[in-house]
């Protein structure tokens, strides 16, 4: 029972029990955000290093707030200020950090497997805050926490994930976590952004058009289109993408009447989602952000509570 890992590297190998344990604990941590004094001493004396090799204000801040609300000492290292720019290898950077005896290292890196590389090398717990297009487990878990506020996370629920699946760690982590809980997942991407062979490895339904994915969906999860990938010949223009794949009010009507709309942020308004939908009553995008802190507190608590 429970969650007894040293690291959280992905959702791919998490069991349903582990996922539910984290979600239930996160549920309890939500309450702390409503207190006048938003701090508990659970991780007092523990050190959390946020090691971000990719810019990410939002995830880093979320981890930092989560750590501080648990009374841990949170230290931020970003690539721009670290020795990485001086050509130091990841192993050397990590060995140096290990020498300072942190309890938890949160890492964001542009290459797949960077968190795994570190986890195999250091004694501290490692949380993967995004490795390339592979995994971003805390994002998926906070998405599940948000879904659970409105829907029952169980077989029978249908989640549509629409956007650049191929390059999305958010999509992958969500696919693993949702399918582990028996939720029906429909994905839709431009054919240039759909990884070949995805149906072979995950029990998901791949839809050609967003309309197909939206029909009957209880949850609509839009992915960020990375505009900087424009030079990669993946789609002809932002305008074309928005017309065919963007979520607008008319398309949203295809989903269940009580469907909720999610986006991991940051949004490209008017591209993958219209402002009308993003700010509409069915949008739970800001709840995702609040839940991110509670979920990350739960993860830090479970990993940080086991040091000797």
């Amino acid at each position, binding site marked *: 029972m429970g969650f007894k890992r040293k*690291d959280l*590297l992905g959702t*791919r190998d998490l069991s349903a029990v582990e996922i539910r344990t984290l979600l239930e604990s996160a549920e309890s941590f939500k309450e702390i955000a409503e207190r006048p004094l938003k701090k508990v001493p659970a991780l007092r004396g523990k050190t959390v290093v946020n090691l971000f090799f990719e810019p990410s204000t939002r995830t880093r801040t979320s981890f930092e707030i989560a750590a501080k609300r648990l009374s841990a000492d949170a230290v931020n290292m970003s690539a721009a200020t670290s020795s990485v720019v001086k050509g130091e*290898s*990841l*192993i050397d950077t990590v060995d140096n950090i290990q020498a300072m005896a942190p309890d938890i290292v949160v890492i964001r*890196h*542009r*290459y*797949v*497997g*960077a968190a*795994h*590389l570190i*986890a*195999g090398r250091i004694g501290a717990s490692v949380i993967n805050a995004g490795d*390339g*297009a*592979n*995994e971003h487990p805390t994002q998926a878990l906070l998405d599940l926490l948000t879904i659970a506020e409105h829907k029952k996370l169980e077989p029978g629920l249908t989640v549509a994930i629409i956007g650049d699946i*191929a*390059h*999305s*760690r958010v999509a*992958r982590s969500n696919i693993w976590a949702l399918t582990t809980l028996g939720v029906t997942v429909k994905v839709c991407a431009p054919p240039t952004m759909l*990884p*070949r*062979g*995805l149906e*072979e*490895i*995950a029990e998901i339904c791949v839809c050609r058009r967003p309309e197909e994915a939206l029909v009957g969906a209880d949850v609509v999860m839009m992915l960020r289109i990375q505009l900087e990938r424009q030079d990669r010949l993946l789609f002809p223009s932002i305008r074309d993408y928005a017309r065919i794949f963007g979520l607008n009010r008319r398309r949203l009507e295809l989903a269940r009447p009580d469907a909720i709309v999610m986006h991991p942020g940051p949004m490209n308004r008017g591209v993958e989602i219209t402002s009308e939908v993003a700010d509409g009553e069915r949008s739970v995008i800001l709840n995702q952000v609040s839940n991110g802190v509670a979920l990350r507190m739960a993860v830090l608590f479970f990993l940080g509570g086991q040091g000797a």
Partner: protein
Amino acid sequence: MSEKLFSLLLKNGRLIDAGQNLDGNFDIFLVDGKVRELAPTLSVTVDQVIDLKGLWVLPGAIDLHVHLREPGFEYKETILSGARAAVAGGFTSVACMANTNPVNDSATVTRFILEQARSAPAKVLPIAAISQGMQGEILVEMGDLVEAGAVAFSDDGKTVPNSKLLRHAMEYSSLFEKPLFCHCQDNALFADGLVHEGVISAAHGLAGIPPLAEEIDIARTIMLAEYLKVPVHICHLSTRGGVELVKAAKARGVRVTAEATPHHLFLDERAVVDLEYREALDENLKPSMLCYNTNTKMSPPLRSAEDVAALRQALAEGTIDAIATDHAPHEATEKAVEYGLAPFGVVGLETALSLALRLVQEGVLTPLQLVARMSSAPAEILGLKDRGSLAPGMAADLMIVDPEREWVVDPGKFYSLARNTPFAGWCLKGQVVKTIVDGQIVFSL
């Protein structure tokens, strides 16, 4: 090599020689670096007699494809360390690729390599580049290079994207009867790929390298060779589609030959995230270290299980002529990085023969076919008339193998300077116990 006529008698070994189609117990009499006589029983007076009861005697393996890194990358490997690794793996001749620094695109570099190789235990055969600096723009001085000792031409590591240049390289090299070794890769489709485009790339978000990236270029290369009626050799075939292209071309009479590496014959894409031989590995390795192991990163990448099966079948039926290692040494720190940053390539000289023996144990190859793929066919592809067989008069280049000896691959014990093998921890049966080059024992276990 020796100052006096050194003679050696190998008694009671099982000689397996595809060149003469022999497989049986023979005594072998070696004098002055050459094979003098073979017979079921020989009694002659010699300097040394070795009893090989229970052991196999095979013509020395010839590796069509190694990277010895010298000049320029001596921290990864040197000609001497690479040659030591070669003889430890039963290779008596190795053909080394041109992607050194400077590139082997001039007679000076070729002569330097041969000069360095004089003290090496194996015979080193320099392959010169096709284009100057491997830039794919201007042909190298092929005549000069052949005179200096180049045995073939290759821009291996890169394709020759300009079809007109490739055509002229094929035409011009045919003048010297030296083959072109083609690394086939469509650069645009390969892009920044890291692993085979398949279930692993899809599941783990690793940029995929489609089989097409290889096959389109193999097709182009074969079409040029067919049109020009010249021989061409395809390096490291890795896909079923590539096999089919080569097979069809051979059936049409195109003079195309092909090689496959041991790693493509034994590992598929799943090794990238979960080395299947996990249980054999050091138990101190944590699971996360088995995930995204950079010793599974090479170009072409480890393909699907279906591709592996196709390669094995093609090797058995002869569509693939040779096993070549694509021995690509890298220093440990170069591989101890993020998967996406690691250089492509793995070492192979010290594991290839035992892995080939495993193909025999698994029923993929007969012992005679093994010798054909590792010795006689490579000799023929390079036009080496004095080796690839142990017929009387041939060079006394051979290996002695204990087919029953079991060993565990321990990169720490490699003669190569590099340790980047995906086979660490594998338990293999059959090992080289002695290697003889020009009648001299250059390696003993």
